[in-house]
């Protein structure tokens, strides 16, 4: 047991060091690299906390796609070094942050000994949903409304990112052009890794009902493959104005809504799943959602249209 404690303590220390480096260093690029490493380490922490679903999501998003996003911004930035405020400001900020941290630590220690939990309730209702993975049950059944709203958030973020383009590029392709030095290895990687990766992504979402995985982790993996394909120049980002793209982007929420209102007819409530059909219906939603998530994530990273249609 002590060894496990030591391991966790070491992991925590490593996390803090890397995060501290990412926050404190003056070089933007280094900070972003540090943050990506932090994301990967964090997913280890999630495994330690018995949250494999979160670990997968964190690895795909926190360490993966977010890293790419931040990297793309840091590469483009003209200033490579951060201009920090005066010593006094930093000191006051550090004191304030330290007080908050200390307070939080105190609160962590004061958390009730008998932790209040919804685990029994979740477990009890698990049978109705026909799923084996309680986290997925929470996401897709108990708190499905959250998940739907969250997908709207994602879609809206896409609209928001698109709205940052320029008027004359509207309808065109995002300008995500890193293929100036397309090279053999990258090409090879794209050709080999992308199909396998997409397969793994689909697998992740498929097993998500019963095992760690789920639509978001799967979608994020597929998105990463898409980005790799763009990097290697194997594929081009789609036209923002194209019809299929729009349909694909909204598919997840649309199916959600259809199933939701179907619930009135089938089970008397919005987003209620008919007895025995819960799992297939959820899988249908997840198929559409995985597609939409993958596409939306890719589009979020490649940014607004930057070339004339």
């Amino acid at each position: 047991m002590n060894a496990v404690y030591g391991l966790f303590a070491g992991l925590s220390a490593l996390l803090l060091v890397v995060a501290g480096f990412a926050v404190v260093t003056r070089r933007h690029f280094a900070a972003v690299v540090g943050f990506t490493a932090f994301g990967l380490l964090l997913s280890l922490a999630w495994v330690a906390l018995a949250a494999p679903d979160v670990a997968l999501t964190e690895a795909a998003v926190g360490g993966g796609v977010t890293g790419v996003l931040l990297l793309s911004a840091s590469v483009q930035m003209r200033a490579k070094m951060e201009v920090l405020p005066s010593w006094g400001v930093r000191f006051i900020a550090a004191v304030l942050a330290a007080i908050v941290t200390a307070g939080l630590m105190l609160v962590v220690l004061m958390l009730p000994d008998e932790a209040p939990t919804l685990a029994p309730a979740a477990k009890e209702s698990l049978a109705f949903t026909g799923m084996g993975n309680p986290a997925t049950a929470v996401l897709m059944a108990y708190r499905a409304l959250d998940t739907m709203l969250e997908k709207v958030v994602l879609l809206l973020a896409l609209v928001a990112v698109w709205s940052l383009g320029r008027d004359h590029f509207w309808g065109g392709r995002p300008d995500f052009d890193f293929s100036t030095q397309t090279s053999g290895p990258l090409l090879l990687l794209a050709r080999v890794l992308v199909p396998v990766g997409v397969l793994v992504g689909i697998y992740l979402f498929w097993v998500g009902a019963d095992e760690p995985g789920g639509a978001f982790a799967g979608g994020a993996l597929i998105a990463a493959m898409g980005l790799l394909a763009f990097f290697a120049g194997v594929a081009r980002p789609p036209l923002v104005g194209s019809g299929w793209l729009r349909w694909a982007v909204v598919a997840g929420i649309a199916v959600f809504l259809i199933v939701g209102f179907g619930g009135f007819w089938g089970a008397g409530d919005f987003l209620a799943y008919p007895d025995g059909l819960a799992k297939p219906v959820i899988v249908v939603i997840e198929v559409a959602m995985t597609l939409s998530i993958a596409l939306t994530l890719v589009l979020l990273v490649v940014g607004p249209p930057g070339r004339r249609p």
Partner: protein
Amino acid sequence: MTMKPFSMIALGWPMFLLCGLLIRPLRKWLPRLLWLAPLPAFILVFFEDVGAPVTLLLGAAAALWSIGGWAVPSYFPGGRPGVGFIACWLLTLTGSLGVFLVEDRVGFLVFYALVSLPAYGLVVSEGTPPARRAGRIYLGFAILGENLLLAAFVILSRGVMPLPPIATALLIAGFGAKIALLPLHFWMPLSYTAAPIPAAAVLSGAAVKAGIIGLLRFLPMETTPVMWGGLLVTVGFCGAFYGVAVGLTQCHPKTILAYSSVSQMGFLAVIIGMGVATHDGSVATLAAFYGAHHVLAKGVLFLAVGACAARPSLTVAPAALIGLGLAGLPLTGGALAKLAVKAPFGYGPAATLASLSAAGTALLMTHFLFRLADARKNPAVSSGGGLAPWLLGAVACIAFPWVALSMTGLSWSDVVAPVALWKTLWPVLLGGTAGVFLRRIRIPKIPAGDILALATPAVRTAQGAARALGHLDTTLRHWPVACGALLVIVLALLFAAWL
């Protein structure tokens, strides 16, 4: 808002006329129809029982609005004031009549706002820089008064008995701002000087009485603590004499009339204060009688300023009658008003002061009459017009108190008794003589708005404070500062909740 059905008609009618502004062909005719606007309210006075004070004040106010409305076209080129002027006129009119008719508190505040705020449009309608300045100051006071009254009314509506002193203080301050009680008076000379003559007439005569009816209604004489009566009497007398003193230094007839209003409103406050001090509710009717006479007299005197430029021969003599009447010239309506309010003053020092203030009024009116006569040689002072309304108004002003005398409990024989005649005559003689002598002395000029000149340092301080707040805003809007403030707020909230 609660009121009697006929009151709704009386107040709906001007609003209906206002809607006429939306119809383009009607717009041309509306200025000529303004005199019709207050008529339903005027008719209402004769058959609806609204209580003696309201009957007196409302009747006089409606009559003045009608006369003033008749005079409006003659003061504007082509007889067509701007749409804004008409709208403001009708809105102010509605408010001015509405404060007498509405029965609930919120409704009173609504009409009070209506009589106060749109009048800004009347004050600034000439668009000159002094008019705009006067308008700004007027509006500031209107909003100040409105806010004070809001607070007072909220306390009133909580129904706590006895009324907390702060509520009474707020009421007096709020209505005091409207009736230009010292030291909240300086907006009055500025705005009456700036406003066109018919507007100045209705504002000084009718609109200002919203404050009087407010004091009468919300400071019931029977129950308000005596102390407040004393305060009103003191402040009122100060205003009565101060108005005369500063008025004497003025040249422009409109400004002199405005200072006379300051003085007269002060005197009215004294009457109300006497009522409060003696817990005698009947004084309300007497105060209303005095006020009603002032409605017509002051309004008509403003019209005289315009009429004088057109036909001096038909103006100066009646104006002298009315002006000195304000001071109590025997057998005029003003004398009746003065006699009516004799009773509450008794025979003590208050009575002496009252007589002295009447002498002061006579002095100021003499000064006004000289200036009026001078002004006809100086066309810059006023553009002429409105002869017929002026004459009608003059007749109404002289006749009205005789008609309404019975409401005060005085009889004809009381007012023609030699003692009564002498009582009202000597202050007039004293003041008039002093006025004639004063004409030979050069009096130092004080700018209209008197103590406003002293406000400059205060304004500078305020500007400095505003600049400081601007710097504060700039500092707080720095990212690290705001972010740090956020954390400080977290800690402060926690600290406050935890302790």
